[in-house]
């Protein structure tokens, strides 16, 4: 099933080119806003999934082209992102497990705009990632059971500012690197786990202005999804609706700048499109990290 928020955060189920409004079917889930409605639904999924499965028969049918899709998880309890979890141009040997928390306030939805802050970053980059939506509360999950804790999957871009807060006592600078407002595009919808056959073999692609930048397979993860979930849950409990991002392959990372259109797609998860605005209109050569390395190899300058 494909779960989405649309227009004024109406909850919908997407089938083919239509969305079916299911707000009425879930109105009895206690909630203050869309963030805890989706969380409440995930917690009670077993009770609601059969009913929601009949949305195309029972609910109002709206052409997808006529609605504005919103972030399917507008304010997760936590966004946990794996750091350096792929063998790529940055890492020639597997690095120890590491992660960081990204602010839930950074979430933004499809067709919204990332605003680059007025901070002296060396560069702003896109990181296309597979995000896992957690299905139930748990600590100390055994990797053998990890998939039982997964509710679904969604596209996620971990937008990143480099080179800030250098010189502080703490050399971990993920907060000023990652948590800026609008630095967490997510969507266009959550795909429930039963529709994703092998998440560890998905291809992840990201384009900037229609030029392919990132194109990698989830098979390249150093620490598998199951192992990563096991490890993270030893540190902090996972909650329904939490977002767990698998990290990215850094080979295709490149700069974002004013006017860019960024699209990403993981097989079966739909296409997430966002725009970039930079009031300072800074520019960088539109090259991926791999392209910069190969230019250096031929003696050309950046």
């Amino acid at each position, binding site marked *: 099933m494909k779960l989405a928020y649309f227009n004024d955060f109406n909850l919908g189920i997407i089938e083919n080119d239509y969305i079916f409004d299911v707000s009425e079917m879930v109105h009895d889930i206690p909630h*203050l806003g869309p963030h805890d409605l989706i969380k409440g639904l995930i917690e009670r999924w077993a009770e609601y999934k059969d009913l929601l499965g009949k949305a195309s028969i029972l609910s109002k049918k709206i052409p997808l082209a006529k609605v504005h899709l919103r972030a399917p998880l507008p304010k997760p309890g936590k966004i946990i992102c794996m750091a350096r979890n792929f063998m790529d141009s940055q890492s020639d040997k597997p690095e120890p497990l590491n992660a960081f928390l990204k602010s839930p306030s950074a979430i933004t939805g499809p067709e919204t705009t990332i605003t680059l802050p007025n901070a002296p970053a060396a560069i702003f980059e896109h990181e296309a990632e597979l995000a896992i939506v957690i299905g139930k509360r748990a600590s100390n999950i055994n990797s053998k059971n990890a998939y039982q804790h997964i509710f679904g999957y969604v596209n996620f871009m971990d937008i990143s500012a480099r080179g800030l807060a250098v010189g502080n006592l703490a050399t971990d600078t993920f907060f000023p690197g990652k948590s800026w407002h609008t630095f967490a595009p997510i969507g266009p919808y959550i795909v429930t786990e039963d529709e994703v056959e092998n998440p560890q073999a998905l291809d992840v692609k990201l384009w900037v202005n229609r030029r392919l930048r990132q194109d990698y397979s989830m098979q390249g993860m150093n620490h598998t999804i199951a192992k990563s979930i096991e490890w993270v849950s030893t540190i902090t409990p996972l909650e329904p609706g939490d977002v767990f991002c698998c990290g990215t392959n850094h080979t295709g990372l490149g700069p974002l700048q004013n006017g860019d259109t960024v699209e990403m797609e993981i097989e079966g998860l739909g296409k997430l499109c966002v725009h970039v605005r930079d009031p300072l209109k800074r520019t960088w050569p539109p090259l991926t990290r791999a392209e910069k390395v190969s230019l250096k190899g031929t003696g050309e300058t950046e």
Partner: protein
Amino acid sequence: MKLLFFNNFIPGVLKDDTVVDISKIISDIPHVTAHDWMAGLISNFSKYRDLIQETALGSSGIPLKKVRLRQPIPNPINLVCMAGNYSENGAITKAKPLNAFLKSPDSIIGPEDTVILPSQQADIFHHEAELAIVIGKQAMNVKASDAYEYIFGYVNFIDISARGLHQDSLFIGKSWNTFGPMGPYLVTADEVEDPQNLPVKLWVNGNLRQDYTTADMGVDIPRTFEWVTSIVSLNPGDVLSCGTNHQGLSALQNNDLVQMEAGRLGKLTVNVKDVLDRTWQREIDKDTANRVAERTTTGGFGQSPANF
């Protein structure tokens, strides 16, 4: 006013040595969780303040000894902690670039709860006593000169830290379950005369370890607030912890009793449990203190040559 949760997260207010239940007064605040209730009260405090004051003054409360106090902010959306933001009793004369980290909101525990040390082979587990700020209204790109308008109140916070599990990861250092003791109550800003000049004290088994004042912050509260809200928009009930002075850090180990108090925010007491019963030297960690104060360039943060 001192707002709190007690027993099964019943909202209350402190009156002398008693707790007065305010759940009826604020029953119309929409909430799914206890956190929503407190965040809703914070957002609409002007509507409820007088009523709470009158009720509290007019009621006889439940003796503190008969209730279990809980963490007053159970589940903030953002728990932002400043990193390396003190001048270490004046040793760091030039302020460092600001830095912070997010600590898992699920790490928060309350008064008399127990910090559980994980079995991972950390070099040491430290306490970091901190003044934490509770946000009163949506705060994004707030100017330093306006910062105090966004501060609802203050609470004691201990940023428990594991050292040496990873060369630089603050997630692995800070986000362990139970590593965020908070409480015993949330003190509204009107009762804190000068948050920039509060003594912060922490004791381990009755021995004073940390003893500094918030006047030692390298970058003051308003400018810290400005910087943080330039990055992330904070919500009512979010928590910004000011960082710590590292000159009194020491090891935590099994059966320790930890107490802290900033200003007159009440005494926060927690216990420590370590199933592995590891031991460390009990004095202040001078290696860390010296390195953070830049009197030495090596040692500390668990890299001490002592036989840890």
